[in-house]
Every structure is written in C-alpha cells, then in structure tokens.
C-alpha cells in the first residue's frame, strides 16, 4: 500500500508540474502587448544578400528581431492563405517604398513578415505573387505563431529597438491596415521617431 501511495504522489507531482507547463502555454496564448518585450523568436539569417544587407545582418545561422540594425521594426504576421493578408499586401509594399524613399527614415524602420503555418514554398508563392520587397520568413509548424499568442492575421507588431540593444513593443494591431501613409505616421509616433 505504501508503494501505491508513493506512485500516486509521484503522479500528483508530475501532474502539478505539467499543469505549470500548460499554464505557461496558456500565458503564451496572449498576444504580445504594448510595453512588453517580444517573445523569443529565432529567425534564419536570409540567404539573399540584399535582404541580409537590408536587415544589417551578417554571417549565417539565426538572429533575433532586436538584432536588426535599425530603430524600429514592423513585424507582420501573415499567411499566404489569409484573404486579408492578400488584400493588404500591395499597401504594405507601399509602406516599404515610402520608408525606403525617404532618406530621413530609410535606415530607421525595417519591415519583416512571418508566414504563420506557411512553408518556405508557400512564403515564396506569396512573395512572388505580390512582389513583396522585404524579407519574409516561414513558420511552417506555427512555432512563432504560438509564441505570439496564436494571433489572427494579419497582425502587426511594431518594436522599438534602443541603442543599448534593449527593445519594447510600442504598437500592436490586428488587421485594420489603414494604408501606407497613416500607418507610417502611426509607426513614427509610436516609436518616437517623430
């Protein structure tokens, strides 16, 4: 009987531990909030040299978003299977062009996209269909999407990167993309660049 009791206690301890893990997963189900840091997101350094230069990265392997050499990063969580993401794609491309054509902010704001549940092939289809000029990253098994609280798409996260390497989220937005100019204005204000 004593042996049975020990096994039950062991199960109970393991279960409490598991509940703890589940609780952590549930906490990750909350979308990233303004004022917080980003969840841990490891992205592959792009092979394309232009994209690598755009992000100010070097070498190979993985990087974290705050390592991008800029003052603010706009992260769009999208899917090639998402009708709103498809509809917004030309407008987000326009945002990229507005930034790149303005020498005052060209190197201060960067855009990346993360394809929730999309394979490399699927991300490339989206990139090619809409001529997306900024780097897109696959998230085939939803790892990043889960870390970001399984947000609906498109979801925009604006991250301010400080000179000391720290960072914080300064804006998040589900859908409702207002067009390139209003969104740029919003990003400039939220990130303190204006």
């Amino acid at each position, binding site marked *: 009987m004593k042996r049975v*009791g020990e096994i*039950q*206690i062991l*199960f*109970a301890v393991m*279960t*409490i531990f*598991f*509940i703890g893990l*589940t609780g952590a*997963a*549930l906490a990750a*189900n909350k979308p990233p909030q303004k004022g917080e840091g980003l969840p841990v997101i490891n992205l592959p350094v792009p092979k394309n040299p232009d994209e690598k230069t755009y992000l100010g990265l070097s070498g190979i392997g993985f990087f974290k978003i705050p390592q991008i050499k800029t003052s603010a990063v706009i992260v769009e969580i999208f*899917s*090639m*299977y*998402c*009708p*709103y*993401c*498809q*509809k917004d794609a030309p407008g987000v491309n326009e945002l990229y062009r507005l930034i790149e054509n303005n020498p005052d902010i060209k190197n201060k704001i960067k855009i990346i996209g993360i394809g*929730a*549940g999309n*394979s490399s*092939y*699927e991300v490339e*289809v*989206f990139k090619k*269909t809409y001529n997306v000029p900024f780097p897109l990253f696959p998230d085939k098994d*939803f790892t990043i*999407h*889960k870390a970001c609280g*399984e*947000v*609906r*798409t*498109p979801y925009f996260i604006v991250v301010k990167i400080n000179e000391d390497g720290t960072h914080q989220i300064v804006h998040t937005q*589900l*859908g409702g993309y207002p067009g390139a100019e209003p969104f740029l204005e919003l990003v400039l204000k939220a990130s303190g660049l204006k």
Partner: protein
Amino acid sequence: MEKKRFPHFILIIGALSVFVSVPMAFGLSDVYKGNIYQTGTLKPMDSKLKVKVGDPTPHFTLPAISGEKISLGQYRGKKNVVLSFVPAAWTPVCSDQWPGYNIAKDIFSQYDAVLLGITVDNIPTLFAWTNQMDQLWFPVLSDFWPHGAVAKRYGVLRSDGVSERALFVIDKKGFIRYIDVHDINKRPPLEDLMSALEKLK
C-alpha cells in the same frame, strides 16, 4: 481514503487542461472573424478509398456556384485536373485552403491544370462562404444532392456526411495520377501538390 483521492483529482484536472489548451491554428484570417465554427480535432481519416493511382477517374457532373454545371469530361484531352475536396464550409482548415490556391493560379496554369473545388455543402452556403475569399478563379462545385454522391464514388465520404480533405490529380487522358487523402485537421502543403503536377510534364 481522502488522502488517496487528492492525487487522483489533480491528475484529472491536469489531463483536462491539456485538451483545453490544444491550439486551433487554422482559419486565422481576420476576414472570417467569429464566423468559423470550431470543429475541434477530428479523426484524421474516416473513409476508405474506392480508387487508386492509375485508375480511370470516375466521371461526374456537379452544379457550380456560378450557376453552370461542370462535367469532368469537358477537360478530357485538354487539361490536367486537380480535384480539391474539402470537408465543410465555415470550418477552420477549409477556410484557409482555397484562398491559398487562389493566389497560385499561375502555378496551376504552368502545369496546364484546372482546379475544381468540391464540398458537400449546398450552393447558397458555398456562395456565402466563398464570397469571403475574394473572387476565386476556379469553379466551386456542390456535391450536396444526392448527398456526397461524388465523394462516395471516390471513397472520401466520411461517416458523418462530410468529405475528407482530399486531393486528386487527374491527367489529360482521364487517369488518376496522385491522391492525397490528408489528415482532415491539417492543410496539405502546397509544394506536395505542385510536385505531383510537375510529374505530369
């Protein structure tokens, strides 16, 4: 005795919490907002195929949401055909799948293929659902009546009356060249289908 019940209780609560936290990562687009019915995780497959690769395809004629009737035979000798059966309108994975195909028209054309989307839903339901996907370039067919008859002939009608999430590639001669009866809970990767079409070249 009371002491023994406590660990059991914790165990049960722990096990239940696993199910509560199972993520549903499809049907994510904000276009659908609260209109997607969450089916939960379903039995991956629930039917037995009645055709195999190399067989001549069963023929059918079905109504499309455009009002036309589409027959498989009209593509014989002209186009490769991809049949995309999806289980039901307004459900998570299905609501993702066709919008993705909708931006891949060029790739289907590159392989001289047409796509036919099929569900067992009726025309009005399909009309309302696909209106959320922008303008689909491919015909969407209703296998509603006799209910699921075409799905049944291919062996992809599930016991609850919806179809499997299944892809069939049919060559210009009318032979089945690829079958993917996919786990109903997951979206088939686009590259797998395209690689099947590549083999028809």
